[in-house]
């Protein structure tokens, strides 16, 4: 069992939370990550800031720019990750971001840094299965999960290619669009998750546009996990270095809704 598989084997759906590393400053990120854990998040996604986050809506774009504006570097992200791992030995930590910062020093370098910092998985927005050699083999060789995205445009014929070489969980992007926009209709999420779960042997977490405990709870009735990002980013934008309190409060509300949505035999 890995930290990631444990997180999805607790007997209830998992709450996956995203914040951008270095937002508002590299030093302030630790307290925000701790608030997510204390609030009850099961998996932490730490965003690696990038100058050109072209799959993200305005909220996460601005978070990227705030982080870079505060001088956040790739070294800072790995420092944040390593310190998190030291404080929280059991909570899975996933890096999420774009191809260029992940591959610029070579995929092997990146995978080795992930291992050193105790990172469990990587989500790369702009490396589809067709370009897997860019990053996938290095991560798999290092024992780091490559977590791929499936979307409403990923049809039945294409799904096996997306699942091939994926591990940890599959991130189902519920809307064809960018982060932080409107949520998809619940019926379409139910249908898609059922379809994907029929093929997937790994857990399926659903994200994009999920902001409230009510939405998260509804998705958790069908999915193995629920991803919430922009709602946290909005709190960080509003409260800055003092965001830990509000972040913990929102996490607790989301966790209560997600964890109680469906009970399974562990």
């Amino acid at each position, binding site marked *: 069992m890995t930290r990631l598989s444990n997180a999805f084997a607790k007997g209830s759906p998992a709450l996956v939370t995203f914040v951008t590393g270095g937002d508002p400053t590299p030093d302030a990120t630790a307290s925000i990550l701790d608030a997510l854990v204390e609030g009850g998040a099961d998996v932490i996604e730490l965003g690696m800031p990038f100058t050109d986050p*072209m799959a993200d*809506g305005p909220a996460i774009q601005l978070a990227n720019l705030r982080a870079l504006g505060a001088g956040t570097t790739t070294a800072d992200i790995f420092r944040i990750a390593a310190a998190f791992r030291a404080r929280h030995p059991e909570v899975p930590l996933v890096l999420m971001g774009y191809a260029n910062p992940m591959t610029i*020093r070579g995929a092997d370098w990146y995978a080795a840094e992930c291992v050193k910092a105790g990172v469990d998985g990587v989500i790369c927005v702009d490396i*589809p299965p*067709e370009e897997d050699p860019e990053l996938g083999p290095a991560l798999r060789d290092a024992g780091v999960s490559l977590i791929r995205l499936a979307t409403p*445009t990923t049809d039945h014929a294409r799904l096996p290619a997306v699942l091939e070489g994926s591990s940890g969980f599959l991130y189902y992007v519920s809307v064809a669009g960018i982060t932080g926009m409107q949520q998809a209709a619940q019926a379409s999420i139910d249908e898609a998750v059922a379809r994907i779960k029929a093929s997937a042997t790994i857990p399926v977490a659903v994200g994009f546009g999920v902001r409230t405990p009510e939405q998260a709870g509804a998705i958790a009735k069908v999915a193995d996990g629920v991803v919430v990002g922009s709602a946290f980013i909005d709190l960080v934008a509003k409260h800055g270095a003092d965001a830990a309190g509000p972040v913990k409060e929102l996490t607790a509300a989301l966790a209560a809704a997600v964890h109680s949505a469906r009970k399974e035999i562990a």
Partner: protein
Amino acid sequence: MQHRPPAPKAGTLQIWTSAAPSAKRGAMNAQTPNSFRNQPDDRGHFGQFGGRYVAETLMPLILDLEAEYRKAKADPAFQAEFDDLLEHYVGRPSPLYFAPRLTEELGGAQVWFKRDELNHTGAHKINNCIGQILLAMRMGKTRIIAETGAGQHGVATATVCARFGLPCVIFMGATDVERQKPNVFRMKLLGAEVVPVTAGAGTLKDAMNEALRDWVANVHNTFYIIGTAAGPHPYPELVRDFQSVIGKEARAQMLSRIGRLPDLLVAAIGGGSNAIGLFHPFLDDESVRMLGVEAAGHGLDKEHAASLAGGRPGILHGNKTYLLQDDDGQILEGHSISAGLDYPGIGPEHSWLKEIGRVDYTSVTDKEALDGFQLLCRTEGIIPALEPAHAIAAVKKVAPTMGKDQIILANLCGRGDKDIFSVAEHLGVSL
């Protein structure tokens, strides 16, 4: 990869002689004995460059586009409609022109121009837009989006959308909207909606990000007309193919006018669509050398937009190519006097052609481009755009080093009407 090689000095240019092709090139021919014109491979890679680095949402559409492009390429009716529009709507073939007074002034090789600035809408951009809108309609798409920097591609896209009656949304950096007001007005006259993009520095790179965001949210009905030979496969290939009309015509015109091929081709490069359009049909003509001219801005040791000279390979906007970036892979802002060259990347085929040594690349500064701009006005009565002014500046340096029996063919890819205000400002003239 962490070490950045020292940037070459701005404006240095190798001397061209009629003998002695570079050793580098000889070695390359040994590696690729067949053709330089059979790229990309079936995964969209030009050597290590190119590819399809896009979000999963777009991937199925990119695959559809590729399949539809293969069918269109093999369909004589598609080609016939493209050719017909180029002839009667765009005004092709564009003339091939010998520049006698410029040649005399430079005192070396004969200088010829491919006159793509005479196209409808005033630049080479329209060639590609005609091809892509025909593809969009083949695919049943009902809405067109595009990014634009200087506004030339935006105007060309708005033009073909008006011609075919499709709604059109143009993403343009807010900074560019401010400094390119005449083109913004042109796009609006043509019925396009112009969306100012305030993210980042508000220039071309940010406009492209925003166009990708729109596309991802509207994949079901929207076609993205990319303006240069870059982006995810198959865009670099199809934009090159549509722009190759420039080089095909020029090659035939040279042969019919003087019975020989030029010795050197010269073209300016931002993303590189006019350059690849001119170069590609000549790539297997061993006697023809080629020079791509990047924008060195204030100088390669200062702010510039010369991705090949001052950048290194990375992944942005769907392809792997040379990019201006820092050690962490964060993308840097490009700078050039020419808004059309002001992009921190370059089309992936150029990155490949540089690495294999088939094409040489150099760069000229803002100041040199301004000098080239005025030189062409004065000697030939042609006001060029600031983009080809970079090519002219390179011609100015290289022609005197070549023999009078040698021939340079440069691409005059756009006219300068759009640039007279910024040129006046740089020359300290108030209009």
